[in-house]
């Protein structure tokens, strides 16, 4: 459903994403892990059509995001890590606006808006300007907006940041159900427990390159990690042994 072919992104002389190729089939929840600055967000933003790759291409359901953007984006729902939305629109107005961007309107959309607001417990806030929303509420609103047009693919960057435990649990259930019904999710996260519990497959990116990909047992096997947790595996692959030194620094 999502295919990355030799995806590369340069910022001047800095190579943020270095010749990545990856495929995420339909009906799969695929985790995308990596340390800060590894190239996760850049990759996801290229998949969402926000950034143009320096080289390579992104296909969503067979459509090239940069050559047939409208067809590819109709299938896609994108949830960014920083919830910037129009402060002077109300929650309901924002959702109606997003639906309009996908060419959808009418009673069906009104019902869909009511349904999503209800699920994310924002109904009593629907006529409030977004500027009054907390970070978590904005995040919930953006998640609702990504679901409003019933996408086939969800690309999500750090979905759990700012969500309360109840909303985080709800989101996990939504993603699982979405995948269960044949949807595809590509999710970047730093919460390794969440990734381990939720993801069917995982890719780990470092210095712009994918250093490991597969199911958690696959990764353990490939890297002879015995029955190590995903966290230990992640630290092993990304050179996180410095964590021990950190404890010493904090210990004064």
């Amino acid at each position, binding site marked *: 459903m999502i295919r990355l072919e030799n995806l590369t992104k340069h910022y001047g002389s800095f190579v943020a994403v270095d010749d990545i190729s990856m495929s995420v089939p339909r009906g799969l929840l695929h985790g995308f892990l990596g340390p800060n600055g590894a190239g996760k967000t850049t990759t996801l933003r290229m998949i969402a059509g*926000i950034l143009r790759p320096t080289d390579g291409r992104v296909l969503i359901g067979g459509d090239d995001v940069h050559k047939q953007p409208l067809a590819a984006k109709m299938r896609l729902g994108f949830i960014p890590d920083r919830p910037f939305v129009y402060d002077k629109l109300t929650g309901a107005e924002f959702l109606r606006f997003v639906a309009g*961007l996908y060419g959808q309107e009418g009673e069906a959309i009104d019902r869909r808006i009511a349904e999503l607001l209800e699920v994310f417990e924002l109904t009593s806030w629907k*006529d409030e*300007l977004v500027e009054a929303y907390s970070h978590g509420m904005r995040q919930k609103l953006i998640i609702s907006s990504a679901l409003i047009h019933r996408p086939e693919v969800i690309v999500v960057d750090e979905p759990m940041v700012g969500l309360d435990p109840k909303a985080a649990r709800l989101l996990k259930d939504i993603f699982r159900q979405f995948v269960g019904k044949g949807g595809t999710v590509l999710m970047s996260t730093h919460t390794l427990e969440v990734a381990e519990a939720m993801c069917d497959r995982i890719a780990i990116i470092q210095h712009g390159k994918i250093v490991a990909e597969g199911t958690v047992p696959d990764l353990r096997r490939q890297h002879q990690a015995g029955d190590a947790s995903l966290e230990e595996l992640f630290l092993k692959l990304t050179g996180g042994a410095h964590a021990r030194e950190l404890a010493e620094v904090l210990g004064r």
Partner: protein
Amino acid sequence: MTGTTVQPSLWHVLQPKWRTVRQRLREARERGGWGRLTILVTVGGLFWLGVYGVLFRILKYFRGVEELGPLLAGKLLGLVLLAFVSILILSNVITALSSFFLAKDLDLLVSAPVDWLRLYLAKLWETVIHSSWMVALMIVPILAAFGVSYRGGLLFIPYAVLTIAPMLLLPAVVGAALTLILVNVFPARRTRDLLSIIALGAAGGVILVFRLIRPEQLARPEGFRNLLDFITVLRTPTSPFLPSEWATKAIMSFLRGSVDPMPLLLLWTTAAAFVTFGALLHRELFATGFTKAQEGAERFVRGTLWRWTVGSLLRPLPVAKREFVLKDIKLFFRDTTQWSQLILLAVLVVVYVFNIKALPLHRGEPVGFFYVNLVSFLNLGLAGFVLASIAARFIFPAVSLEGRQMWLLRSSPLDLKALLWSKYWVGTVPLLVMALLLTGITNVLLEVSSFMMVVSLATICALTFAISALALGYGALYPQFETENAAQIPTSFGGLVFMMTTVALLGAVILALSQAVYTYVRAVYEGRPVVIDARMIGWFAVAALVCAAATAIPLKVGLKRMEQFEF
């Protein structure tokens, strides 16, 4: 941990701001190279030279008038400085609200062990710089003209700095104190709304009153009963308790060779006392005010009115375009800092029309046909300039303001053409209404012929389409995605280039049309029938082509640039 903490120096608190400014300048230099800097310096230099030149001539004339000359020069300086102090108080109140209560670095500063005095002084300094830099730059050519014309010598430079510095500081202290009190009464966001309305309303009121009393009549000595009355009026201080008057006295006494230390002393002691009182007020009220500033957004907005009215009007449009236009209109009218500028705009239009009405063209005697047509024709250029200023303020920032939400627009299947289309028409339609009203009303007041009426209405329509496209195109070419305040966007380099291009466009169109209009005026003047011949049509076609190119090219270039945006 207990005991006293070592306080950071004031410079340390201000350092991030200074480093940010330096970095921005470096980035701007890297992006635009020397070309951009050269354009900025040239335009700035020309403006300075213009102000200096005009003032120097006036002062030269004053110097030629015995006795009255220095009085007139002092009065002029007093009025200019008074205008500056009024502007400074208004801008300081608004700036202080941002720097003391809404700035992003406040969380860090307030949670750090920085004492109240350092916080106050750092934020006051920030307020002074932000709100006064433009006035400070404007004062340079003015004082230079005074200094040169009265032969103040090199010593005049440090003396002028010494005089103007407290004059800039005092409004900042007053502005900060007023804001502090207001924030304690209203929530900060409400205060911002209130302030923008009050400030712009007040500014508009001042301009309106100032214009409607026709000050040019006061400048005519023949209007006074005798010369003594006139001199008495000149001698009377305009505002004896305002720093502008003290600064005027200090400067004029220096320039006339008899330095009076009193005004300078007054300026500095008042500034010191005000900063002290301001600091004490800050100590008492800042904590509660800052807490209040965290609250208070508007609650409960239904927005059904927009859906019923504008939404119904836009029904024939595809849903994406309709929702986009609706969104833009709602955002504009819900943001007080945006729509309140319409107050000032309305006032400027009234003043504009009033000025045309006040022109001494119709005084009972047969109207000078030539002059009426000349004014009507030149009015096109002036109206075009007014429209360009409005477009710079409202249309130029349109693309920049989408910056933070571009993730949504770029990841959705919204066609960028549709986005540009919506932005273009949301800006153009009101601009067009205004253009037609402005030109139509002034033409009626001027009693122009129907030929001129048709030519000017058609021209202003074509110009509006072009100006709007230029504003949007340049806005996309020089976006300011980091600026949250829409009012700051037009003052960027892109805004300047837009204004320069628009002036060139106005010049080109007027030049082309002048050939056709000249043929017409000449025919009427000579009593010949007006023949619309191939030559005339040719010039009209040239003007139309220039406008069409100025509409299509910027939109095309803007679209291309938007396709390359990366976030």
